[in-house]
């Protein structure tokens, strides 16, 4: 099993007192499998994704990536995890504005010391970014920027790809095209894919679907 999530709890302090975002979530995901995580705003789906991505730590429970329990990792260990093993595609793209498209695509692979120019070129080609490699992110449209972000995430060939509303900022047609590409490429790398979305249509294209409600699997 690529990913095993067991009994995850997470509580945030808010102005109105503690708020339990996740209350005992379990899920599993196998390599090559795709999973849609749906739920209403505040259901905890983004938080769960952050925890799996090593961006945050749970209060209780375990998350195993293969044999590794990532909840036991320290800050540096989680950083290493984010560099190479788990890739995250953000809704806000989070590109580095001062780097050209080519450098943005290569950036994470370079951080992980897994830079492969051939694979990079393939990704750029497949994402239709080849004509834009020398541009800066601000010169691209939203769909193009998201494709750069996806290419950047896939460049180090992570075992698990996480995406948080990856098409949330895109119009419908663009969103469909970007999603197609992402699914295609993920399946080629054999990675697992977990997408947080509230789009039923998008969720429908995943092999499985998990609905969160009030911090628990519905």
């Amino acid at each position, binding site marked *: 099993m690529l990913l095993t999530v067991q009994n995850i709890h997470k509580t945030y302090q808010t102005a109105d007192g503690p708020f339990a975002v996740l209350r005992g979530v379990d899920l599993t995901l196998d390599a090559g499998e795709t999973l849609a995580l749906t739920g209403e705003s505040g259901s905890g789906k983004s938080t769960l994704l*952050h925890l799996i991505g090593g*961006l*945050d730590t749970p209060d209780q429970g375990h998350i195993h990536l293969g044999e590794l329990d990532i909840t036991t990792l320290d*800050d*540096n260990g989680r*950083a*290493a*995890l*984010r*560099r*190479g093993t788990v890739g*995250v595609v*953000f809704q*806000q793209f*989070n*590109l*580095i*504005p*001062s*780097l050209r498209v080519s*450098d943005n695509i*290569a*950036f*994470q692979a*370079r*951080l*992980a*010391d897994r830079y492969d120019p051939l694979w990079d070129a393939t990704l750029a080609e497949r994402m239709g970014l080849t004509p834009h490699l020398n541009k*800066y992110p601000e010169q691209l449209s939203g769909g193009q920027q998201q494709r750069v972000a996806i290419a*950047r995430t896939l460049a180090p060939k992570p075992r698990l790809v996480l995406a948080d509303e990856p098409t949330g900022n895109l119009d419908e047609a663009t969103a469909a095209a970007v999603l197609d590409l992402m699914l295609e490429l993920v399946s080629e790398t054999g990675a697992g894919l977990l997408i947080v979305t509230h789009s039923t249509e998008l969720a429908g294209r995943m092999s499985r679907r998990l609905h969160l409600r009030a911090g628990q699997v519905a």
Partner: protein
Amino acid sequence: MTRATLQALLSHWWRNPLQLFTLLAGLALATALWSGVQAVNAEARASYDAAAATLGEGQYDRLVRRDGQPMPQETYVALRRAGWLVSPVVQGRLDGVRVVGVEPLTAPGGIGPVDPVQGGDITEFLSGEGQLFANAETALALPDLNVILTPEAAPGTAVTDIGVAQRLLGKLGQIDSLIVLPGQPKGRADLAAVAPDLTLQPAQGGSDIGRLTDSFHLNLTAFGLLSFAVGIFIVNGAIGLAFEQRRPVVRTLRALGLPLRNVVILMGAELMIFALIAGVIGVALGYGIAALLLPDVAATLRGLYGADVSGTLQLRPSWWLSGLAIALGGTAIAASGALYQISKMPLLAAAQPRALAMAAGRQAVVQGVFAAILLCVAGVMMFTANGLIGGFTLLASLLIGAALALPLILDRILAASSKIATSVTAQWFWADTRQQLPGLSLALMALLLAMSANVGVSTMVSSFRLTFTDFLDQRLASELYIRTENEAQSAALVAFATPRTDIILPIQSADTEVAGQPTEVYGARDHATYRDNWVFLQQAAGPWDSTFGGQTVLINEQLSRRAGLNVGDAIVLQGTSFQIAGVYGDYGNPIGQAVIGEGVFATLYPAIIPQNFGLRMDPVAVPDFLTDLEATTGIRATQAVNQASIKAISLSIFERTFTVTTALNILTLAVAGFAILMSLLTLATMRIPQLAPAWAMGMTRSQIGRLELVRAVMLALLTAVVALPLGLALAWALLAVVNVAAFGWQLPMYLFPMDYARLGLFALLAAAIAALWPARRLARTPPADLLKVFSNER
């Protein structure tokens, strides 16, 4: 990993060259201001140190004759044979060069700038053939002598063996003073038994020359400290903004798997490299500033105090190291705070609103408490401070307290203004200004410090000038002053001038000691010149009558303060006791002064023959008088100085002081203006989301731009309003606390409203110039960019 990260970090600057420029320029200017002032200070100090070292001035006790005349060489031998470990010094001027003769076998270590083993032939040095040690500039003035060049020699000074000096100066067998060595032997005879006409002058903390010129240095040092404060604020602002701008990128980097430690180390290293580059540029700029100012400074000091300052600037490690240390240290302090914030920044807080405004709210409380504490300290010190350290503590707490309080004061003013605003635009303007305040506050603090420094220092210098001009009128009442070369000339002058002038006032003095203070005693001739012109700080009834009558003495403020002597107390001169009848202001004089009547002076100091004379006469008759004088007595016109020219010289010296002060003033303001520009530019990009709603609701872009300009000028104006009282408090502290502690006299403080108005205008101009470009940029923001604000919103 490191390479990719560095690329990502550095590419930010490549893509935002303006930010890079403001960061580097901010650091460089702060460094330049600091190191420029330091360079001038260090250079002048080094010159005095060399001068002081030549004679060991101040380091050692000295024996001199009570009447100030040279002593015979036999006195030296008699003292040595009585067990006194003393070393003889003779000095005088030769072709404008101060020639100092020392005796190397008995002189204490550390006397003289020269190592005779380097380039010196011992046999020759001692043989009387005449080796002199001097720097290259001085050597040019002594073309016919055997001068060994040494850069360590004091400016304008040549050191040689005592035998050679006696011969060159025509003082064979004479000694001016004896240095008393530390570690005197047991069983030494009493001074009174061996040489009753000598008096011991105790070692001073600093040399006479040092004390004198310190008054000017204090001025510069105060400037140095203020410029340092301004610089630190700017550095802090530059760094803080640089970090603020890159928070999102740091988040992205960390999300992509860069460990926090690497982020901190790499950003720290990057900043240190920038600090180094900026520091080097800043020191070079500072060198340029100093090189431009130094001739003036040198001229000022030479003119004011007769201290020789080399007119050339040397690259001294002390100040370029201190310049780099300021750049690196300032950056490190500012960056450590910023890096700490980065390290505490949650990885997932990207959606939080602007951190600046949020953090400012929390900081305001802390800042307010600090400001209150410092201002309280300053308030207490105003009444209790005495001594230099107290004075500077007062200055520091006053300035920093006021700077910290400034944003809070402005915030209150803006809040009050928005309450009374009637139109919607005005309400929006005040509210928006208030919102901007946190981002601008560092720059405004820098402006506050720059302005109050200007007000304070220029008040001090101007007060000094005004006091001194009055004082010159008092002291230079005679129309003509003549210096004779010998007794024969003195007699000839008196004979010639007596029928042709209203009165001749001989100016005669003897160096002595009163209540342990080195003091010059003057013998004054009874005349209305004194009665009419001298202003007393304290006086008994009819001070001149009793003084001219030989019963009383008048002393200067310095002697009065140092020795704690007041009217009614008595002092002893040559065994005769005199009651003090008056204390007069004697500005700029480092040592004590006492005036007694001419008759009693002649009795007490019979060896002193006056060679300086003031002549009262019709000013119109002066040119003819001088022509006749030269024809009749051979006294050349060059030996005469008329009052007007002395005053002109004195005033021109002050003009030079002003040149330096004004140059530094303008520079400080420019730096503060630059800080405003930098802050506004940085804010401008962040402000588009804030301005977009105003635009969407019907304000034109040019209206917005104009308001931006008005805002900057208005904030500068408010800052100026705060700066004025602060600057006056600063001036008061400088004149009434620091000056008294340093030099022993208090300067009356005068106010110069026109100067302050002009300064305020300059500050507003600086702010307007700084705001002009950012405002124009805002006014020309493409509508598409303003629209993006809405389209990007989730």
